[in-house]
């Protein structure tokens, strides 16, 4: 990136709320049904029908507001956003405009260099989704699928607090983590349950005024978000350095070409003619409802990570990894509870290491782990009591992952129990010393590096089962004598 320019980025994230029915009708919200089978008369915008607000959608919005320390508006207003489009049945979208349900709040993001910063949120408001226009396989016509019309969305709007594509991606990840953590959104980006618009501008470093921004629409992966913003920052700097002006416009990111292109300019933008929806009364939220929702809020990711650091003695980085999702944190704590509080570091190393790698390799979520928390704890217990070494444990873990049984069954079946009998180990060591007189002489003459060679030979003869600490100690003693 060119020096002398500071990017300024704000995000608008649309999270589909995990309700069973739509925000203003009783139709189901499940994904993947045959076109137009989940759209009732209200979703179709039939003459005479009226919207009725889904109380569960309100509770989920309140849940989000409480999780980010926002204020929950005791009175908020639904407005109509008017524009014509074939997949917008009523000719308007019901949204919140001047008075959103969630106001303010903030979130901490962590950066790769270990530093962190706070991103402020402007607001989060409830609205309904539109349907889908299908332009393929209709022989020059367009198909309309209104299954998605009326699906509840929470639009989460940040302040322009981010200064790089990486920060923006970190923020988007953090919101993604949070909405799943508190159970308000499944976070499925392929199905469009979680998508993002990015507002990007640049300004001369040190300036306090905002430059003209462009909005990049419908980014549905973290990588695309980062790529699109990087491209857009470079594009804007290029324009400005060539003496041009940035045009306020909406742009689309094309992942195949890795670039953004103009969709429509401000002049072409609709005048949405927002006004309060007279079909819906102002949304009133009582203190009692807020208290009720608050009582069901789980321990949040930050608090949980801090507790893991304080109670279990984990490092901050380890704790952050373990709280990437609530399911992972639950898994870890279940392992810890079973293996005992003294072994937190061991448990963290294994969950973040072998387990994470295995899940990643098989593209599985933690909920589908082939080794459950109790089973992993069983393995860690054998490491802790020195029945097996860490190295052997990896072999046992792979066997467990392959479904070959519990740690103890595998250790017994394969005879992997560690040799801790000193006389047995001494016998092996004597054998090794006798078989390698040259190396012994060199070692004794000061070539310390050869120590590893002797350890390797002993381990080879014990098939890796020699207790490493004991082997080291006995070897050192015998070689010195």
């Amino acid at each position, binding site marked *: 990136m060119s020096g002398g320019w500071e990017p300024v980025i704000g995000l608008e994230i649309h999270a589909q709320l995990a309700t069973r029915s739509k925000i203003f009708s009783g139709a189901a919200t499940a994904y993947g049904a045959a076109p137009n089978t989940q759209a009732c008369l209200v979703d179709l915008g*039939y*003459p005479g029908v*009226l*919207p009725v607000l889904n109380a569960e959608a309100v509770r989920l919005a309140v849940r989000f507001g409480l999780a980010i320390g926002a204020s929950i508006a005791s009175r908020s207003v639904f407005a*109509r956003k008017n524009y*014509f489009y074939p997949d917008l049945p009523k*000719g308007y979208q019901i949204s919140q405009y001047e008075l959103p349900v969630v106001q303010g709040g903030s979130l901490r993001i962590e950066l790769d260099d270990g530093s962190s910063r706070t991103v402020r949120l402007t607001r989060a408001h409830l609205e309904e989704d539109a349907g889908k226009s299908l332009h393929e396989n209709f022989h020059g016509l367009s198909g309309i699928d209104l299954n998605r019309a009326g699906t509840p969305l929470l639009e989460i709007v940040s302040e322009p607090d981010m200064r790089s594509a990486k920060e923006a991606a970190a923020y988007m990840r953090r919101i993604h983590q949070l909405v799943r953590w508190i159970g308000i959104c499944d976070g499925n980006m392929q199905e469009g349950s979680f998508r993002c618009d990015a507002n990007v501008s640049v300004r001369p470093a040190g300036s306090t005024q905002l430059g003209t921004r462009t909005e990049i629409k419908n980014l549905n992966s973290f990588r695309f978000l980062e790529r699109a913003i990087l491209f857009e920052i470079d594009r804007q700097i290029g324009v400005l350095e060539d003496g041009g002006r940035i045009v306020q416009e909406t742009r689309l990111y094309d992942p195949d070409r890795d670039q953004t292109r103009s969709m429509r300019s401000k002049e072409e933008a609709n005048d949405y*003619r927002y006004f309060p929806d007279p079909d819906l009364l102002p949304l009133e939220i009582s203190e009692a409802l807020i208290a009720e929702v608050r009582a069901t809020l789980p321990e949040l990711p930050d608090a949980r990570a801090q507790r893991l650091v304080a109670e279990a003695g984990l490092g901050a980085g380890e704790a952050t990894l373990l709280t990437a999702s609530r399911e992972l944190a639950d898994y870890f704590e279940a392992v810890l509870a079973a293996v005992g509080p003294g072994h937190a570091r061991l448990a963290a190393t294994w969950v973040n290491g072998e387990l994470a790698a295995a899940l990643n390799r098989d593209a599985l979520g933690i909920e589908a782990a082939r080794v459950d928390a109790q089973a992993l704890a069983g393995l860690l217990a054998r490491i802790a009591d020195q029945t097996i070494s860490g190295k052997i444990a990896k072999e046992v873990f792979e066997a467990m992952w392959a479904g070959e049984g519990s740690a103890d069954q595998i250790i017994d079946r394969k005879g992997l129990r560690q040799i801790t009998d000193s006389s047995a180990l001494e016998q092996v060591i004597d054998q090794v010393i006798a078989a390698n007189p040259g190396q012994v002489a060199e070692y004794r003459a000061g070539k310390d590096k050869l120590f590893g060679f002797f350890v390797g030979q002993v381990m080879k003869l014990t098939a890796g089962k020699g207790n490493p600490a004991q082997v080291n100690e006995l070897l050192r003693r015998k070689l010195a004598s």
Partner: protein
Amino acid sequence: MQGDDRSIAELARALRERSTSSRELVAASLARIERFDGALNAFITVTPEQALAAADAADARLARGEGGPLTGVPIAHKDIFCTRGVATTCASKMLANFISPYDATVVERLAAAGLVCVGKTNMDEFAMGSSNETSFFGPVRNPWDLERSPGGSSGGSAAAVAAGLVPAATGTDTGGSIRQPAALSGITGFKPSYGRVSRYGMIAFASSLDQAGILARSAEDAALVVEAMAGFDPRDSTSADLPVPRYVAELGRPLAGRRIGVPPEFFDAGLDAGCAARLREALEVLRQLGAEIVDVSLPHLGLSVPTYYIVAPAEASSNLARFDGVRFGHRSTAAGSLEEMYKRSRQEGFGAEVRRRIMTGTYVLSTGYYDAYYLQAQKARKLIAEDLRRAFDRVDVIAGPTTPTPAFRLGEKTDDPVQMYLNDIYTIAVNLAGVPGISVPCGFVDGLPVGLQLIGPAFGEAAVLNVAHQYQCATDWHRRRPADPPAGAKR
């Protein structure tokens, strides 16, 4: 053949005593429609088969000793209410081919109460009009003078009841659309408080003003029918979750001690002298019945017409956006692009008055004009509502004219929308404030009926109906009938 002069209460009694049958009443109603609607054009759709089948079902229930106080009585629905399996046109080319897949709550509740629907009545297109001349299906004629308008927008319902085609018909009232045609047609028209009757299934014109009600021959009949259609509906978020009082039980209460407010603003220069004279006579009747006539002021009444003609078109411009030719209704076959399809479908499907209001509404909501028009209108609306609320601290009901003049000639005001809009000058404030109002006949000027309007506080329907009923007990204007029009089939 004469129309049936019996009240709904009398018809219901005769049905329960089995001295008449629903089939007999419904067949008589259908016969009068067949004979006289050629001259009146009060109906858009008549449904003889469904009506006779429903009448037979009602008779079967009555024969088993079942059924309620309205079972078997014929009724008609304004064509703004969705009726399952029956054309629901809103008197627009846009919906001329629309068969509703569901029943409006009002339709459902009245059917459940045993009323038998004989057809759908004509109206101004999308309820936008005060003369019934904006209908795609042609104007309705006033039974008192076929060259005159019956008023609008519920003009078909008003003419049908006035001519004795049905004992009662539903209507909707956004700025006077029940009370004004009732006044011009010499019948009783009752609009309950906003929120009292569900709007579900009633095709929206201006959502914050629209309210369903009834056009009937008397306040007593109106009370009976409204009791059956009112009450909370979970499908309408703006419907009031309040119990519906037994209006009928309150009707007999004497007027002694009732305080009736008369605002000088209602007796302005715009009020026809003949109408003013009839109204003063009506007030004298109320005074003699024991009511106390009190002066009250509604200082912001003059703001109601301009306020209304911002709020109502604003909401209408958005409510009517769904008529885009995509899913139902008229779709232009001449369009080559999506945008052209929208433009042509709407241009062809909507009449001139509807297009005028959509454009007005779009304008007042636009960036740069919203604050000057829409927000100002909301403020004015609050002032008007506050005037009425304050007045009701002092009086039980407010009395005044329903319209400035008796029925005007068809074509007389069609070239001057503002003159047409001013016809609603006395009725609009009631909608802006969301309070109940009724128009009852109170005499004639040059052979044309005049209406007395009675207005109550929010959810104070009982007081309005009580005063109206007591007035009707002391007068017989509501029993006057126009001569039958010339018989003849519909053109």
